[in-house]
């Protein structure tokens, strides 16, 4: 079985800052991580491989430094990593990204064997669109299973997979033919700690690097900024709210007084609440 998993190197959103003067996001010096949702997909791919044999190929599109994310994926135990990197890809929106990735996956299929499953995370934490996975599936004409919470079973002889999918109404159990594309939900598993052998292999691996031509992409107008209809018109920081938090002076007051003062303060702002919470009888 050959599994391709698409990951993205994203800025660690917990450590991102807005420039106090220009109000733009300060990307410089912000540590990067593998998109956390992708790690659930990666672990699921590794588990399938461990149980049924085969190989896991990790794919990312990004600047040369995205190699760090791929090397980390190898440390977790992936077998092979492909970095799709080319200036022509700069400024890609989800349409252009899914185009480039689907071309690269087709090339991976030709080079290393046709994938049975393509995994992605549910969405990225920097774009939050959840569009790239479905975009790849559509372009490669793969059956798509989104928001998958659990892989119930896989039958490689019948080429069938059964999954549980989270939907608004509840959980759906779906059976699909292979090959398919799966976008994994968070919280489905926990990424493993790679063995010493995996870590050593990852540290020494040469990452496969493809530019647009290597990935067999001929139509560059579908790539990068040119291939991206999405336009960012303005980036801004939310305005600071005018209202200030009210502070209660705690010195020389009993807890009972403080509680009374707090409740009075809340009720004065939310009069409706007082009626709602009114006690019947003696409190």
């Amino acid at each position, binding site marked *: 079985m050959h599994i391709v998993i698409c990951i993205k190197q994203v800025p660690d959103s917990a450590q991102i*800052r807005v420039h*106090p*003067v220009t109000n733009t996001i300060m990307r410089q*010096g912000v*540590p990067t991580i593998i998109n956390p949702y992708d790690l659930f997909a990666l672990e699921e791919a590794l588990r399938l491989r461990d149980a049924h044999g085969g190989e896991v190929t990790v794919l990312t599109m990004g600047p040369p430094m995205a190699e*760090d994310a791929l090397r980390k994926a190898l*440390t977790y135990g992936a077998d092979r990593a492909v970095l799709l990197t080319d200036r022509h890809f700069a400024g890609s929106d989800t349409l252009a990204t899914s185009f480039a990735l689907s071309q690269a996956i087709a090339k991976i299929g030709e080079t290393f064997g046709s994938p049975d499953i393509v995994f992605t995370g549910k969405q990225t934490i920097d774009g939050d669109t959840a569009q790239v996975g479905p975009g790849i599936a559509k372009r490669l004409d793969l059956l798509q299973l989104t928001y998958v919470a659990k892989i119930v079973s896989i039958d490689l002889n019948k080429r069938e997979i059964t999954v549980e999918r989270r939907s608004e109404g509840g959980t759906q159990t779906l059976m699909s033919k292979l090959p398919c594309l799966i976008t994994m939900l968070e919280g489905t598993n926990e990424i493993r*700690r*790679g*063995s*010493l*052998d995996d*870590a*050593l292999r990852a*540290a*020494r691996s040469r990452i496969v690097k493809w530019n647009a031509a290597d990935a067999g992409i001929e139509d560059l107008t579908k790539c990068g900024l040119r291939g991206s209809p999405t336009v960012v018109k303005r980036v801004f920081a939310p305005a600071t709210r005018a209202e200030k938090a009210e502070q209660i002076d705690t010195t020389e007051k009993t807890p009972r007084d403080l509680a009374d003062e707090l409740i009075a303060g809340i009720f004065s702002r939310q009069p409706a609440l007082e009626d709602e919470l009114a006690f019947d009888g003696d409190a």
Partner: protein
Amino acid sequence: MTEKFDAIVIGAGMAGNAAAYTMASRGLKVLQLERGEYPGSKNVQGAILYSNMLEKIIPDFRDDAPLERHLVEQRFWMMDDTSHIGMQYRSDDFNESRPNRYTVIRAQFDKWFSRKVREAGATVLCETTVTEVARDADGKVIGVHTDRIGDVILADVVVLAEGVNGLLGTRAGLRETPKPETVALAVKEMHFLPEDVIDQRFGLKANEGCVIEAAGTISRSMAGLAFLYTNKESISIGIGCLVSDFAATMESPYDLLENFKKHPSVQPLIADSEVKEYAAHLIPEGGYKAIPQLFGNGWVVTGDAAQLNNAVHREGSNLAMTSGRLAGEAIVQVKTRGDPMIKENLALYKSKLDKSFVIKDLRKYKDMPALLHTNSRNFFTTYPQLLSQAAQNFMRVDSTPKIDKERATTAAFIKERSRWGLVSDAVRFAFAWR
């Protein structure tokens, strides 16, 4: 699969990177293990980079190393609660083509250094903690065990560059646990400010940098030092005191730092800044007398783990780098001769270190840690206060005759420390400095 390397380096700080680079670039098969997520993620320093010591490892480091500002000015402050009296030196000579000192941000610098190590051919594993050194029946160190599932990794020699609080070497009995009176605890904040604001506040231009080092009542009678370094778009500000002093006084480090930041001499320099990060770290302060055994059968120890830090001149990373380099060179020499990595042969590292500035500087100040520790109240509270009073007395113009002012100043010194105390402090300080 049990793999064998020529050398395993534990830690990817200044000492570890210097050792790994030196050995890998001379063709040794080197494995470097770092517990942090990436090299530099666990490393904390002020930080000032000393060019000369890095040039001896990577001569053209200026081409691509992430450097913040080169230093053209240094200020030393003696502080009391409302004032500082000090000395400052600034020279355009420091605007040379190959500047002598730079401020750096270690998280970025160490990533660069580690890339050089990998380019030199070493295998670098991060997020991998060495749990134990492996020994043969005779007690010779033959490799390491890690916290990842897998076999022992073998090597002819293990270079311990695990930092000040390296549990590995102490657990293995290769050296003692650092004592509270031989390590300082320093806390530091990074304050973001636009580049031009920093330039204005410190009178700097085009990548020039300024360093302030301060002592006095800010350390509340403990032996300690505060600092303020200008980076390109941020200011590193911190303070450190001996751990034993913190324990005895029950003072808290962040409280000292908050106090230092509020000092009228400091506050305007960092006003309107945004705190970017907060860090704390231990600093070896024991000096020459605290240096442990530096080599043995199958191992050497370098950098902070070996207490190689010059507290008087606030130099650490250059001693770390140099000890790492010399350890690497010694190992390469032993290897080239085809000799085993046993104690007798690895003594070469110690003799190289003895001949270098590292041990010579530390030996020069061997009595300083004890002096400052036992007399910390005098050196860090009484004298700064007296000096400040004397300066103010001198500058404030009123109707007091000058001769009376001088007498008052002298009387204040004698009252606080007595003639004998003053002479004895002066003599002891002079001897410790000698």
